């Protein structure tokens, strides 16, 4: 290797080091959930244009996001499921949850020759996915849909085959409304399904539903809306049959505001408000309460502050349900708890 080449390489390395030093304060990294990724990438774009701060996000899944937070390789993680007490204890330091938006899960179905809108009760949904209600003309389905004749076709329940936040929302809901489900199956990103067949991703479930007469499946509300799938009205805790929509999802979050103030990880499914859609959940950013680098910490806090206020306006255009004012307040309180090296970050606010 000749000396000129070596000199040139040292020069290049110095340049890279110079360029990297100030950038490290302006660049944040995150990893995790895929469900909110379309919104997050929009947020990061808009925020970059506004402030020059670049945020790199890898949508590797909630599980991966939690691992990365634990390893300390990212500034923030993102997860569709709140961390359980056990998981929180495994973390090296205290972790705060920031709910960013809510998502709802819609029941899509394929009933040939059926016009009108299917109505489902919690018992029907758990019965179908338990494999105890197996035909569409079951008297229990007829009771919830008066004046409609159901075909005598077998019911084919379809679930997600991949681990997903959507499954977590759906099984959390079923565990809340059915003690039998809670005991035999439980809630998680993937469960041991008693019945039905699995499709990969929202598109896999929707594809199977669309193709198989008599099928029913659960998909993200955004996906169902964008693909105009027929979706069922679901009976909520107040006894009303509610259509899944952004408004009825935000209503469910608002109804859970008190519980969320006590513990931001509280499930929002099966809310008591009459206008609330029952099958929904929040997606979270996971951030260490005590940050190491004050400059990065301030950049992160500023971003979260922007996301829970101005960022909410972008949510609805991408079919995510925005946070109600009461839950934004919960986030504001959490932001004040953030510290860097023990010193509060946002005290002036």
């Amino acid at each position, binding site marked *: 290797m000749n000396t000129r080449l070596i000199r040139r390489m040292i020069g290049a390395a110095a340049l890279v080091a110079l360029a990297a030093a100030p950038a490290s304060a302006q660049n944040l990294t995150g990893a995790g959930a895929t469900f909110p990724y379309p919104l997050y990438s929009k947020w990061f774009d808009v925020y970059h244009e506004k402030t020059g701060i670049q945020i790199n996000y890898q949508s590797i899944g909630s*599980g991966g996001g939690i691992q990365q937070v634990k390893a300390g390789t990212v500034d923030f993680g993102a997860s569709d499921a709140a961390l359980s007490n056990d*998981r929180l204890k495994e973390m090296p330091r205290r972790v705060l949850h920031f709910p960013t938006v809510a998502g709802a899960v819609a029941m899509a179905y394929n009933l040939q020759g059926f016009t009108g809108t299917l109505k489902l009760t919690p018992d029907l949904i758990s019965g179908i996915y338990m494999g105890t209600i197996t035909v569409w003309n079951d008297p229990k389905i007829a009771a919830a849909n008066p004046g409609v004749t159901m075909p005598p076709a077998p019911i084919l329940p379809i679930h997600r085959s991949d*681990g997903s936040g959507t499954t977590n929302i759906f099984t959390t809901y079923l565990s809340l409304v059915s003690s039998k489900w809670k005991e035999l199956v439980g809630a*998680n990103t*993937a469960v*041991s399904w008693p019945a039905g067949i*699995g499709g990969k991703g929202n598109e896999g479930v929707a594809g*199977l539903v669309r*193709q198989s007469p008599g099928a029913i499946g659960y998909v993200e509300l955004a996906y169902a809306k964008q693909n105009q799938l027929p979706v069922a009205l679901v009976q909520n805790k107040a006894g009303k049959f509610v259509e899944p929509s952004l408004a009825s999802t935000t209503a469910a979050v608002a109804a859970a505001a008190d519980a969320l103030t006590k513990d931001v990880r509280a499930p929002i499914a099966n809310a008591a408000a009459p206008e609330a859609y029952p099958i929904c959940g929040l997606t979270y950013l996971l951030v260490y309460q005590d940050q190491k680098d004050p400059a990065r910490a301030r950049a992160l806090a500023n971003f979260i502050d922007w996301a829970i206020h101005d960022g909410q306006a972008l949510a609805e255009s991408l079919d995510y349900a925005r946070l109600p004012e009461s839950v934004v307040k919960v986030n504001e309180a959490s932001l004040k708890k953030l510290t860097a090296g023990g010193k509060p970050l946002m005290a002036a606010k």
Partner: protein
Amino acid sequence: MTGSITVAASSPEAARSLGRPRPRSAPWADLACHGLLASLAALVLAVAILILFETARGAAPSISAFGFRFLGSTEWDPVADRYGALPYLYGTIVSSALALTLALPLGIGTAVFLAELAPPRLGEAVAFLVELLAAIPSIVYGIWGVFVLAPWLRSALEPWLVAHLGLLPLFRGFPFGIGMLNAGIVLAVMVSPTIISLSRQILLALPGSLREAALAMGATRAEAIGVMLDAARPGLLGASILGLGRALGETMAVTMVIGNTNRISASLLAPGATMASVIANEFTEATGKLYLSALTEIALVLFALTVIVNALARLLVRGATGARRDIAGAA
């Protein structure tokens, strides 16, 4: 032919005189070349050993928690943190075996036609198209399986199978269109190009004198092909094992069409799951430590299965060539 014999028989001086002058430092260059190639080969080995080591390390918590029960248990419950690999092991073996059962007659039949019967021009053209099939991404096969094959299976083939062969436990149950049969067919289509392409090459590489001798002995055309197939048996066996290897590890297309349930059913119409598909499905959102470890152990089991299949294939090929040598020795 004669040229190669001359070179093989001649001394280094003769080789130099053939017009390939070597520099004086030839032994040094030879050593360097030897070292480089040996380290490249060692690298491949090292990667394989590292994969095995890392997978085993990741699987350790699951191995110590479940032991050998992992292979025999049908329970896969992330909520209760209890895992067993049997449904996936079963699904992998059945879907691959089904694929090979369908692909083998198709593949070898096509290869025989292309190598022995088709006009050479046509053979070349078809072989080119078949090799193109091998380059199609597996997700495209998966989409074909979901949107083309599944509706046909559901409305035509599966009801027919249930009506006519429903006495066999293989063909009982509700025709979903999605399930083990669909996965087997998609896999068969995916592995056929490999089998066809390799088998054709092997048949073409056989000396033409073999066929001529058979015909001269008064064999019919079909009998002559039989002689060729017999001579090519070790190679054909190798080709099918390569196809089987692809079927065992295929992930995306299978995940899309197999139905993804961890229930073992004797019926080919029922949904199932394979080891590769459960890893693809659940790895990204696996939030628990033992859960991740169990998925890693599945990868380890898949690794072991592949090694066993390949070792068996080696033995079979060696057996076949050995037998041939015996015949040659006796004659």
